[in-house]
C-alpha cells in the first residue's frame, strides 16, 4: 500500500493518468442528444443535485413535486392500426408524475406540450415551487429535463441522478405510474 502510494507520487505520468480518470463527465452546451444511457456529470447548471437520502427527505416532506422522465416504449409505426398497444408501465416514486417524452435532446411539439402541461400540473403554475427530476442512474434524460426546467424559469429545481435505481436499492416504497395525460 505504501509502495503503491509512493509510486503514485513519484511517477509524474501516473499522476497524469490519475487525473484523467478522475475527470468529470463534461456537460454539453445544449442538451444531450443521443446515447442517453451513459455516465452523467455531477451537476446541472442552475439546479441542485441530490443523493438518495436527500431525495427521500424531499419526498417525505411532501412539498416537492417529483417528475419522472423515464421514456416509455413507443408504438412501432409498422404495427397494424387495430393492434392493441400499451407501452410499458413504470414503477417509481409514489406520487411522481410521469412525463416519458421530455427527457430527449430535442422535443417535438407534443413533447413540449407534455412538459409544459406536466410542470404546470406538478407545480400549480408556480415557478418558485420546488420540482425534482429523476429517471434511473446513468441516464441523461433527467439531466436534460432538469436543465430545461431551469431554462423555463423554474427557480428551485432538484436533480436526482440515481433516480429509481437508487430509490429501489434502498427498498423505499414505489408505485406504478401512469403516463401523464394533458387535460
Amino acid at each position, binding site marked *: 500500500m505504501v509502495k503503491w502510494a509512493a509510486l503514485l507520487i513519484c511517477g509524474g505520468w501516473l499522476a497524469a493518468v490519475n487525473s484523467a480518470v478522475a475527470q468529470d463527465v463534461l456537460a454539453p452546451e445544449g442538451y444531450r442528444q443521443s446515447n442517453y444511457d451513459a455516465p452523467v456529470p455531477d451537476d446541472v447548471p442552475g439546479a441542485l443535485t441530490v443523493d438518495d437520502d436527500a431525495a427521500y427527505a424531499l419526498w417525505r416532506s411532501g412539498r416537492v413535486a417529483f417528475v419522472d422522465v423515464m421514456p416509455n416504449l413507443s408504438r412501432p*409505426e409498422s404495427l397494424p392500426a387495430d393492434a*392493441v398497444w*400499451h407501452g410499458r408501465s413504470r414503477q417509481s416514486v409514489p406520487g411522481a408524475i410521469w412525463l416519458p417524452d421530455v427527457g430527449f435532446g430535442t422535443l417535438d411539439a407534443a413533447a413540449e406540450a407534455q412538459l409544459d402541461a406536466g410542470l404546470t400540473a406538478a407545480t400549480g403554475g408556480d415557478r418558485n415551487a420546488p420540482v425534482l427530476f429523476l429517471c434511473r442512474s446513468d441516464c441523461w434524460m433527467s439531466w436534460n429535463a432538469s436543465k430545461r426546467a431551469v431554462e423555463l424559469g423554474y427557480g428551485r429545481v432538484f436533480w436526482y441522478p440515481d433516480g429509481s435505481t437508487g430509490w429501489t436499492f434502498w427498498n423505499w416504497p414505489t408505485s406504478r405510474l401512469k403516463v401523464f395525460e394533458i387535460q
Partner: protein
Amino acid sequence: MSIFRSHSFIVAFSVAFALPVAVHAGGSSSFLPDYMKSANPMQDSETWDDYLREETVGAAMVFDGEDLMALDAPVQAFDAATVPFTLRQRDDTGARITNLKVVVDENPMPLAAEFEFGPAMGTVTFESRVRYDVYSNIRAIATVDDGRIFMVGRFVQAAGGCSAAVSRDPVAALASMGQMRLKQFDTSGGQSREVPGTEREVQLMIRHPNFTGLQVRTGTLEHIDARYIDFVEVRLGEEMLFTMTGGFSISENPSFRFSYIDNGAPQMTVRAVDTEGGEFTETFALRSGT
C-alpha cells in the same frame, strides 16, 4: 392414484356447484394439496386491476381455474423471446374448454393469443411459446361450454423478448416464411391406429419471423417492420380443431403442440395469415387416418 382422482373430483364438484371463488393474490387454490401448488404462482398485478381485466374479460366473473387446468411456465426462462407454456386441462373435470386467452400482463401487446377450440380438442393439452418484455404474469383464461370463465396464472422472470435480436437474418427469415411441419407423436399406447376416438398428439411448426416492430437490424439499428401471424386455422378433415387470433407476443416460428381426438380423417389442414396479408396453407397426411 384413486385417492388423487377422488380428491380432484370433490374439488371440481365443490367449485362447480358451490363457490364463486375469487382469484386471490397467491393465484393457486387453497383447496389444492401442497404437491399440486405451483412454484411460481401468479402475483398481484396493478396492470390487471387497472385495465387488463376490463380489456380481456370485461365485467364477467372469473373463477379460480386451478381445479380445471394446470398451467406450466418456467420460474425463470433462458430465452425471453421463447418462453414455453403448457396448459393441461385436468382429467375428469367434465367441462369442455371452448375459448382460451393467453395474456402476458406487462407485454406492450398483452393478449398473446386467443384460441377457439372445437369439440375434437377433447381434454385440452396445449403448448406454445411467447415473448416476454419484462417480468410478469402469464395467464390462461379459459371459457368452458357453460359460459363460465376460469383463470390460472404463473409468474415468469424473463425480460427483453419483444425487442431481442431475431434469430436469423431477416431477409432469409422472410424467404422461408410460411413453411410448415407437423410432427406426429405416437401416443397410441399400442392401440390400433385405426380406432377413431383415440387421443393423438401433434406439434405444428410454422416458419415465420413474427417481427414485433421493436427489433432492430444488427449493425444499422434500423427498426424491422412489424409482421406477425395474426390468424391460424387448423382442421381435422372437415372438422375445426382450433383457430388462433394472435399478436406478436407469440414467439417467432410459432409452434403449437396439442392433443386431439381422432375422427378418422386422413389429413390435417392448416391455414395461417399474417398482418401483411401473407397467406400460407398446408395439408398434412395423418399416419393415424383410416
